[in-house]
């Protein structure tokens, strides 16, 4: 690791500005109604595509150990399949990773 890092406050503000613009520009300036059924369907499917790609394969290296990450992932999927709430799934996955971390 290098000794000197950039000023954190400036870096964070730059990150915030860039992030805010990606959110604000379309919602603020684009007002037309999209009629194409293809694009409408695309927008309906998008959240699932984003979240899927954000999760896999990164989830397998989330905890620094592949074994405990996989264990946490399996617990999360099983509980989510049972329809458990987001907070319950999240906390159980963390506990599973924690326990497996000791065993493995």
């Amino acid at each position: 690791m290098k000794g000197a890092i950039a000023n954190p406050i400036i870096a964070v503000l730059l990150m915030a500005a860039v992030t805010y613009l990606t959110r604000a520009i379309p919602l603020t300036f684009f007002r037309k109604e999209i009629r194409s059924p293809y694009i409408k369907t695309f927008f309906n499917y998008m959240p699932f595509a984003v979240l899927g790609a954000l999760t896999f394969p990164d989830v397998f290296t989330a905890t620094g150990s592949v074994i405990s990450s996989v264990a946490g992932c399996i617990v999360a999927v099983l509980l989510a399949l049972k329809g458990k709430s987001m907070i319950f799934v999240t906390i159980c996955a963390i506990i599973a990773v924690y326990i497996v971390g000791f065993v493995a």
Partner: protein
Amino acid sequence: MARPKVDKIAGTECDFVYGLKRGIPITLGYVPVGFTFGLMVVAGGLSPWVAVFTSMTNLSSAGQFAGIRLLLAGASYLEIMLTTLVINFRYVLMSLSLTQKVDPEISLGQRLICSFGITDETFAVAGVENRRLSFSYLLGLIIGPIIAWSGGTALGGLVSTALPPQLSSAMGIGLYAMFIALITPPAVKARPVLGVILISVSISVVLRYLPLFSFVSAGFRIIIATIVGAGISSWLWPSSDSEPQTVKE
């Protein structure tokens, strides 16, 4: 959820409360993940207040994790900005998608306020509402998650040194567990949704592990997987009506 369809789209108090309720699962989910972020920042040698300041101004999970990691590694401002832009570029797609659902009467100022609260999770919930989105609804939806994200970060930053390292590394799974909880129930209910997820995940895995694609950064990988995954799926499984899939509450 058995809620009568509301034709009236003007902001009402009821809309605000409904939005708040829809935001509760996200609010709860953000606490442990924000907590993990606080831990990471402080473990990297920055003050807890930098962590809270980041969460308050950025409100982006993957983006701010990546930005701070780069900062700690001694990256330049330009590098930090570009990476944040690429990782968060998906918000452009989400924001564009929401333009089709918001109440057209929402003013410029209100649009500027709501925009701040667009995240993967609030978008996933708002994007599947079977109604026009009023300003009150959006405000209700985003307010809990905004507070929880910064609050969780503050907690994580403040207790970080007191926490055993095994527990803090275990919390790294939190963000992904939250994503899994969000997409699994709709995938079980609707075949096409499962298809969308399988396609985008496959693309993401291929781009990540095939040496041929090693030049693709993490941010672009997400964007490519999203566009190609949703693109192929909309062609394979055109929905007969524009009724969105329901995300679990």
